[in-house]
């Protein structure tokens, strides 16, 4: 981690962290973690030598498609899953080490967690659910009620204290499960796709409440999701995972603006890929010959003759009434889908070989362009990312 980020985290140090802990560079450190599953079709490598560290108060999001190992990694940190190799250290204490034969059970790791299915105990009231971690931590009886109600107030669920979970809506249940996670004032809260079971409207609301709560209480967060917009909204750093490996880890802007691979670019919403070959590299600009004409991109690290893929997000293609001076692409609108805030257009660009190059363009222009009309778009070179095609692992 860079030192600049360290100082950033210090301002958000949790209040209850003992003095002297603050100089540690990482709060959770995972190294060389490997986990195999044996299935009927043979062994699956769920985690393949994963190393990752999370600073105190930091929000790390594990992002990736289902089966990429993100949930397994989270469960290994929680202690719910036992890895096959590697080491996990929480707050300076080793909680798992294959070489030293250490496996500290979850109840002694000092973490809490928000589960995908809420996991509220149906035979306990909301109050009893939230009080449970305090009772287990032997918090004095006199303090329990105050702390439970304070936690419930923070998630606006204090009026439901005497209800059973089955009497609450999905969103309310997830709020209660959030209260249960914060009531113990643990330094780290793990989130296992907590918003995937609630409907879209509640999801957005919960997401912003969660962000506010995290800012207020400053706990470290490890958050698993497959939803890139959730990741962007909640993360300090994102680790994009693929087949049990960390494909890229970096700040939100890094992941978004400088994806390290086509896979990361694709997973964070860059839908357009144009293939071509570099004909000329100058000081400020490299020229690429593509099937839809010559395009100019940033020259960093490119050499003439290289086969590359240009990746560009839908919102970084702009319509133009006339032929634009830079990076002009001509196409025909095949499909226009009005999506409220923006309209998404699917273009078929002209191709000398007669093959279709499809491009997705997102525009916030109020006037809807007709399907079937011919248009010009321009590609903004500042936002185009290039990958040498040798780098494309498929």
């Amino acid at each position, binding site marked *: 981690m860079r030192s600049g980020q360290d100082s950033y985290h210090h301002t958000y140090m949790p209040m209850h962290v003992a003095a002297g802990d603050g100089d540690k560079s990482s709060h959770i450190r995972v190294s060389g973690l490997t986990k195999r599953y044996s299935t009927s079709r043979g062994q699956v490598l769920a985690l393949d030598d994963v190393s990752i560290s999370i600073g105190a108060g930091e929000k790390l999001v594990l992002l990736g498609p289902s089966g990429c190992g993100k949930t397994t990694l989270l469960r290994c940190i*929680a*202690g*719910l899953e*036992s890895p096959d190799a590697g080491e996990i250290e929480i707050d300076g204490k*080793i909680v798992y*080490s294959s070489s*030293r*034969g*250490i*496996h*500290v*059970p*979850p*109840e*002694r790791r000092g*973490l*809490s*967690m928000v*589960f*995908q*299915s809420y*996991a*509220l*105990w*149906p*035979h306990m009231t909301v109050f009893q659910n939230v009080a*449970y*971690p305090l009772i*287990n*931590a032997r918090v004095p009886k006199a303090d329990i009620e105050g702390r439970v109600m304070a936690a419930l107030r923070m998630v606006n669920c204090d009026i439901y204290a005497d209800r*059973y979970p*089955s009497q609450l809506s999905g969103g309310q249940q997830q709020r209660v499960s959030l209260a*249960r996670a914060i009531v*113990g004032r643990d330094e780290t809260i793990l989130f296992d796709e907590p918003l995937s079971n609630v409907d879209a409207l509640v999801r957005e609301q919960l997401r912003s409440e969660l962000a506010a709560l995290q800012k207020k209480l400053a706990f470290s967060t490890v958050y698993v999701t497959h939803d890139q917009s959730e990741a962007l909204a909640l993360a300090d750093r994102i680790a994009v995972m693929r087949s049990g490996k960390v494909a890229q880890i970096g700040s939100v802007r890094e992941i978004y603006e400088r994806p390290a691979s086509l896979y990361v670019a694709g997973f964070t919403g860059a839908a357009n890929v144009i293939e071509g070959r570099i004909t000329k590299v100058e000081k400020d600009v490299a020229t690429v010959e593509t099937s839809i004409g010559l395009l100019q991109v940033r020259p960093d690290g490119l050499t003439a003759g290289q086969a590359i893929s240009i990746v560009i997000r839908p919102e970084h293609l702009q319509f133009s009434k006339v032929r634009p001076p830079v990076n002009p692409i001509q196409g025909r609108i095949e499909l226009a889908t009005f999506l409220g805030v923006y309209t998404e257009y699917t273009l078929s660009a002209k191709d000398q070989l007669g093959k279709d190059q499809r491009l997705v363009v997102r525009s916030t222009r109020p006037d809807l362009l007709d399907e079937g009309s011919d248009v010009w778009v321009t590609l903004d070179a500042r936002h185009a990312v290039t990958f040498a095609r040798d780098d494309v692992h498929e």
Partner: protein
Amino acid sequence: MSDVAGAAVPSRDLCRDLSGALFSLRGISVLIAAAIVLLIVYPIGLMIWAVFGPDSAVHKEGLIEALVRENIWLVLQNTVIVVAASGALAMTFGTLLAWLNERTDAGAGRMGEILPLMPLLMPQIAGVIGWVMLLAPRAGLLNVGLRSLANSFGIEITSGPLDIYTIYGLIAIMALYLTPYVYLPVSSALKSLDPSLEEASRMAKANAFTTFRRVTLPAIRPALLAGLLLVMMMGFAIFSVPVIIGSGAKIEMLPVLIYRLVYAYPARVDLAILLGLLLTVLVQVLLLLQTVLAPANLSAQIGGKAQRAARVHLGVWRWLARILLLSFIVTAGVLPLLGLAFVSLQPFWTPNINVNTLGFDNYRTIFFNSSLAGKALVNSVVLGAVGGTLGMLIAALLSRSAQVSGSGVNRLIQAVTAAPAGVPHVVVAVGFILSFSSGWLNISGTWLILLLAYLVIFMPQAMRSASVAVAQVGKELTEAAAIFKAAPGRAFRSVMLPLMLPGLAAGWVILFVQMAGELTASALLAKTSNPVIGQVLLDLWQNGSFPEIAALALTATIINILVVTAVFAFVRRKRGLQT
């Protein structure tokens, strides 16, 4: 969730881990599993030793001769014929009833829940005796009714027209008690079978019958197979029907022969042991077939979510189907109960019913004058309650530790607890007599020998209920307990146990009813010092005091009904709260 921690953990934790390992779930489970193994292996080992060991009293030539003298071939032939015929009937009816109830508009909600429980409500021997009281050729109440009906048409009959003491009567009553063993797996398979499979077939233009034949039946084939094997196993093991009806019809079956060899004078325990081992091998082969052919996890299906299926509209047939469902409930439960009630009110069992002589004298006799019957009632209820509680606790612990342990331990626990299913009750009893009747292990004639035998015999049943109860508690709920700092013991007490309670209570009821009404093992293990209902009923039957039998059987049935109703009301209330 492992209890193992390493050297780097502070010493306080280390102590906790050490004591934790000793008293851990796994430690206790291993001890219990070992005890079960001992209670099965030791008696059966002794049996094998007694027959084939060097001190064996059995000499090979004499043995075959002795077996032939006991008509072994005829007995085997009888057994196979009766089991095959009643099994086929049970398969047909069980499947038909399950399909009607789960997949057609004849099914009427609660009827489906009650139906398989009907035979459970009475101790089996009480139900069988009830049927004899209805269908005995001369004094049977149904026969009396049919005769008076015939008389009104001018037809004079003095006996019959129906006779339960025939091979048909034997097969019919056997089939009645075997039907739930088909109904249960088939209906739970139908419940958990995604109805959209059948809906998709209907949308693909297949009619109801084609859908049943091409989609439903293949999908529930494992359940059908499981039902078939279960029926055969139970068919060879059921004792009450052959001992009451078979003996009356002079058709001897294998379990009855084993019982007679131990009980008759002079006793031929060696022959009983040999036949017991034969019966065990027979059932073990069936059990082996089941594990090879049918998928292991039927319990998971029982736990499956009930979905609303598109029901087949039967039209006018609907009422016929409903009558069929209802008539099973009536024949399995109501009719024998009526038979018992009538006879219990008479001074002696007679076809001529005189209203003036009806009264409760028989009840007075069994409660106050016959110490044996009264003692048997108390003993059976206590044994049922204690055995049911112990059995469910043990099974809950074992299922839970099977769930959290690795697959090896899991499989071991499954195998150990399923093993008694392959040992017929009468064989367990013979083995217990051999093992626990002499020396320092002599507990013969005590309630302890009965309790141990019941626990061994009904452990597979207890495990089935408990593993359903354990599986019903979502994995994340127990994980959440660990995350929120509950040690394994506390997590079990505060989260697992309360959530499993409804499932455990349902399992407890089944154990209570079966233990309190147990006959097969009790017939050999219970004596005048430790009488139980099943054995006292059988003894009274052989001495012919029918009205008292009826009174005792009816009392036992009423106790069962009260307990079952109370516990199921409790279960429903608990479940209602949580969903």
